[in-house]
């Protein structure tokens, strides 16, 4: 029994370490790779930001789809032909649209996407600031705590406290 538990724990640790060590599998096949390591590294970096249009939430570097392979080869051809990274991306965007980029470009249509969260945060911050300022002013002005309880209120309060002892 004891031993079983120990084996389980050991198994869990091994599994955990294995999962930690696993990096996302790249789909790049050896025959696609470029001989020049610097160029290949650029191609890999670029591919990781290009969306596979078939699987959509994978980059072409991750995807096994046939079209992703075509695009990986295309990226490498363009780089070999002397294109800059930007030129390769422009080439793809011209044909497939902004959607092909996993990181959308900053432009008119994407301002809401890029700056919307910041705008919401600022609105929230403004709301909190106004709220705090109002409260501080109310406290300083004394209208929240200065008015003492009337005799009637004192009596009601005492009764409530007594009731609380009995009932609950």
């Amino acid at each position, binding site marked *: 029994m004891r031993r079983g538990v120990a084996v389980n724990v050991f198994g869990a640790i091994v599994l955990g370490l294995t999962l930690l060590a696993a990096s996302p599998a790249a789909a790049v096949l050896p025959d696609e790779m470029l001989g020049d390591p610097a160029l290949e590294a650029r191609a890999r970096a670029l591919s990781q930001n290009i969306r596979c249009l078939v699987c959509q939430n994978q980059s072409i570097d991750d995807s096994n789809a046939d079209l992703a392979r075509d695009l990986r080869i295309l990226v490498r051809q363009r780089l070999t032909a002397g294109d800059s990274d930007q030129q390769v991306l422009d080439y793809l965007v011209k044909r497939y*649209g902004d959607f092909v980029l996993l990181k959308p470009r900053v432009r008119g249509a994407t301002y809401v996407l890029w700056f919307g969260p910041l705008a919401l945060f600022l609105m929230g911050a403004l709301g909190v600031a106004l709220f705090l300022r109002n409260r501080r002013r109310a406290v300083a002005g004394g209208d929240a705590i200065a008015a003492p309880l009337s005799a009637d209120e004192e009596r009601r309060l005492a009764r409530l406290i007594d009731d609380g002892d009995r009932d609950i």
Partner: protein
Amino acid sequence: MRRLLYILPLAVFVGVAVYFAVGLTKDPRLIPSTLIDQPVPDFDLPPLLTDKPGLKTADLKGEVSLVNVFASWCVRCRVEHPLLMRLAKDGAVPIHGLNWKNKREEAIAWLGELGDPYSRIGYDLENKAGIEWGVYGVPETYVIDREGRIRYKHIGPMFEETWKDILEPLIRELKG
């Protein structure tokens, strides 16, 4: 004024909720083409068949036509094929084929089995023209105007309604 301020979060929430609700009704697999109203990209494809010409940019100038991307391994191409056959028989509009990432003998066998509605067929095994056109799946159908510009892209199989509601009116308008 104060009340307005309290309603603001609710208003923002409703706005965002409506925005997302509309977004959910859209199909994320439909990626709008960047080539709409642009001239047909430069390409030149060899013929698939020995007795029918291939397809290149210059072929698409001069008359309104359809370019249909197809492959024998594409199940949904079978769905729209009878419609293409009928359009070809009626002579409604010339239909050019772009045979995409397909083994030659399989494509030929497929056309032999189902019929060949195309007036020209470009053979694109290596996705050369496909990338130029921004093809990302089959079937896709493009409407080309007289000046050789892409006017419309239909993604997925064409149905009777697609033809009647979208393509036919557009083609009639383009023919003027």
